[in-house]
């Protein structure tokens, strides 16, 4: 998906300057910025939930299948949906809803998606009663079930402890790698998200700036450094280097074991 001078806003009034950005399959992009910076407006425009004010939005093919995972807090806890029912919502794409019953293959796809996300034993449980980490697994099973090529995840690690956050982001990274998804993650937890991101897009409405690119490029940007501070930016860069080194070491160990 490519944004060419894309202008987002409401009622014909721009919120931010024109945005130029491209995301490809197998890429994970962290969408960061403070509250009210315009992140939500931008991704809602990408998903077709809001009309753009100007510019162009294009995809590699028409009707690119997309999926959106909202913040868990937006899903009403009094609705007695089982985890399995929620995952089955991923099957509803286009005119599929006109079929009155789900086929056996479709039921099996739901089971498969739950299993892939390590949530097979959660299927019969009430979604509202699951832990935050379990809920996120179920939501990602729904995403997998819907077979999108572009997915937007809104604050997938909100209200999670550090271990659960890391596990969730690893799961998301696996989706990107194993299924070729292009994934946009909206998050306030930049230090952890940036470890997995191929791109970062940073929004700052106050200074009317949008900075997009590889994480190191964005970290070097003066607007980004002014926002987060030099010390925090250095820490981000250092942790990315450590992460890269660890991944190389793990990859070499796996290679040695295989040979």
């Amino acid at each position: 998906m490519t944004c060419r001078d894309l202008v987002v806003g409401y009622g014909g009034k721009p919120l931010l300057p024109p945005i130029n950005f491209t995301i490809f399959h197998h890429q994970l992009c962290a969408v960061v910025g403070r509250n009210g910076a315009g992140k939500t407006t931008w991704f809602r425009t990408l998903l077709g939930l809001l009309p753009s004010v100007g510019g162009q939005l294009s995809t590699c093919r028409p009707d690119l299948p997309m999926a959106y995972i909202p913040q868990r807090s937006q899903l009403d806890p009094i609705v007695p949906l089982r985890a399995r029912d929620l995952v089955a919502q991923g099957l509803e794409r286009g005119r599929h809803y006109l079929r009155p019953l789900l086929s056996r293959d479709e039921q099996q796809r739901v089971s498969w998606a739950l299993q892939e996300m390590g949530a097979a034993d959660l299927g019969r449980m009430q979604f509202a009663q699951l832990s935050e980490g379990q809920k996120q697994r179920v939501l990602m099973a729904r995403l997998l079930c819907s077979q999108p090529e572009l997915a937007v995840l809104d604050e997938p690690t909100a209200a999670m402890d550090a271990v659960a956050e890391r596990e969730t982001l690893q799961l998301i990274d696996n989706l990107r790698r194993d299924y070729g998804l292009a994934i946009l993650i909206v998050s306030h937890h930049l230090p952890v998200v940036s470890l997995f991101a191929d791109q970062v897009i940073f929004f700052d409405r106050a200074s009317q700036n949008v900075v997009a690119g590889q994480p190191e490029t964005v970290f070097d940007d003066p607007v980004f450094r002014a926002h987060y501070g030099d010390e925090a930016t250095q820490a981000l860069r250092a942790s990315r280097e450590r992460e890269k080194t660890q991944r190389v070491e793990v990859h070499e160990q796996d290679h040695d074991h295989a040979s």
Partner: protein
Amino acid sequence: MPPEAAPTWAEFVTGLDLFLDPMLCGAVAGLVLGFLGVYVVLRRMVFVSAAITHSAGLGVALTFYAQIHLSWLGSLANPFVGAFLLGIGSTLLLVANPARLGLTRESLIGLVFIFASGTALLVADRISQESHDIHSIIFGTAVLVSKGDLYTTLGTGSLTMLLHLWLRRALIFTSFDADGARVQGLPTRALDGLLLASIGLMVSVTTRALGAMPVFAFSVLPAMTALSLGRRLSAVFTLAAMLGLLSAVLGYLAAFFLRFPVGACQTVVAALFAALAMALRALRR
């Protein structure tokens, strides 16, 4: 003067020809409204239902007024048409964006509810020969329903249930995660419109037959009861429909044997089920 003897089952069975139509009408209304009530309660539209039922009641009242004072309208002044037009009209008004009027949704619902209730009573004051019917329209004291009302309720109820059972997955997805559904290509505005129109239509039709109070009760209380007890959404829908049906039938029987107004009895039976469910739930904890 000796007190009147209580009615007996033998008397009920003897008069079954008279009682069957209103019981059947109530049962269908209770079943369908109970089912739809799950959406009403979960989407926090409880007083939307109240506003629509009273608007439908006003529609019927205005139709009676037209029949008496505007006879040139002739057969156009049909109570069902009046209930339908004002019921659907209020549904459309209540789903519009209230911010454009500088109001919150709750205050808009309150405005429609109060306006419809008050105006219906004003109209009733001008139709003294029909005031008993106006009262029964609002509070449901009618014991008998016409064949026309029965067939309209049966037909509308059947069509509504067929549509809802066919499109249930899409309606549930749209109701509880509209953005997710829209991104996956579902026509969420059309589905939302269908849901609200079906509630508005069913409320309008059954208000004419049963009265506003029992209709409001059926569209809220069975769903509340089912949500207290059910752990799966599909079970909640089924339970709410059954409870609506039971409330209508048992309420009718209670009205016959205890000599109380029908609509009030049906409402109280539905409320008793809700109270019992909440007590059971509290005991479970």
